[in-house]
C-alpha cells in the first residue's frame, strides 16, 4: 500500500492528507473516534507547516509518510520551509484565547493531547516532524 503523499502547500489540499491518513489506518482495529483523532493530529501539523513554514506558497510542497504497525503508528511530515519546532510551542490558556477572541492557537494543543511523542528533526533536505502513537 502507498505509504506517502505529496501535496502542494495550499490549505485546500488538507482534505487529501486526511483521506490518505484515514486510508492508511484502515488495516488497524482503531475505532472511528480514534482514527479521527490521528487524522486530526496530522491535519493540524500539515496546516501549521502550510501556514507558518511554507507561508501558503502553493509552489512549495510537503510530504506525509505513514508507518502503521499493529501496536503503533508513526507519521512524518516533511517540508523544506523555514521549519517550526513544535516542541518549543508555548501552550496558551484556553480562557485567554476565548477572552482575546483569537481564532487560532489550539491546534498544537490538540496534537500534544493526541500523540504520545512529537519529534522535530531539522535537516538540510527538509524538516521532519515525527508523530508517534502507541496503541
Amino acid at each position: 500500500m502507498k505509504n506517502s503523499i505529496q501535496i502542494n502547500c495550499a490549505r485546500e489540499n488538507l482534505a487529501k492528507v486526511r483521506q490518505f491518513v484515514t486510508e492508511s489506518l484502515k488495516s488497524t482495529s482503531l475505532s472511528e473516534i480514534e482514527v479521527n483523532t490521528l487524522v486530526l493530529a496530522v491535519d493540524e501539523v500539515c496546516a501549521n507547516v502550510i501556514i507558518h513554514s511554507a507561508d501558503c506558497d502553493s509552489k512549495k510542497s510537503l510530504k506525509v509518510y505513514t508507518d502503521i504497525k499493529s501496536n503503533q503508528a508513526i507519521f512524518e511530515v516533511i517540508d523544506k520551509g523555514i521549519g517550526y519546532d513544535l516542541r518549543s510551542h508555548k501552550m496558551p490558556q484556553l480562557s485567554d484565547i476565548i477572552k482575546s477572541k483569537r481564532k487560532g492557537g489550539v491546534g498544537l494543543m490538540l496534537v500534544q493531547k493526541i500523540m504520545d511523542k512529537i519529534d522535530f528533526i531539522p535537516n538540510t533536505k527538509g524538516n521532519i516532524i515525527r508523530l508517534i502513537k502507541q496503541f
Partner: protein
Amino acid sequence: MVKIEIQIEDKAAWITVEGDIDASSSIQLDDCLSKQVKTSQSLIAIDCSELHYISSAGLGVFMSYIEEFKANNQQFVLWGLSEKVKNVFDMLGLNQLMNIVSTKQEALKFLNEK
C-alpha cells in the same frame, strides 16, 4: 469543503453546517457567525448533524464568538454532533465552555428559557 445554510425563524437563527471545517473552510463559518452578532435573534443554533470533521481552525472560530454572543445577550448552542466530532470539543474541555446539546428540541429550550 463546507456548506452552510441559515434559516431565520422569528427569534432564532438556525444554521446548518455540512461537511468539513478545516483551515481551508473555517473562514466560511467565520463569515456566517459574524453576521449573526448583534442581530435581533436571541438564539444562534448550529445544526452539526452533518458536520463530518472539525479541526482547530473551526474550533477557534466557535471559541471566538463565545464572548461576543454572551455580551449581546444571544444564546449560542451547538446540537447534533456526531461522537467523533464531539470528542474533538471534549478533548479541549470546550463542552464545559459552550452549550452543546443532542437535539434540536434541547437547543430550542435555550430560546424558551430566555
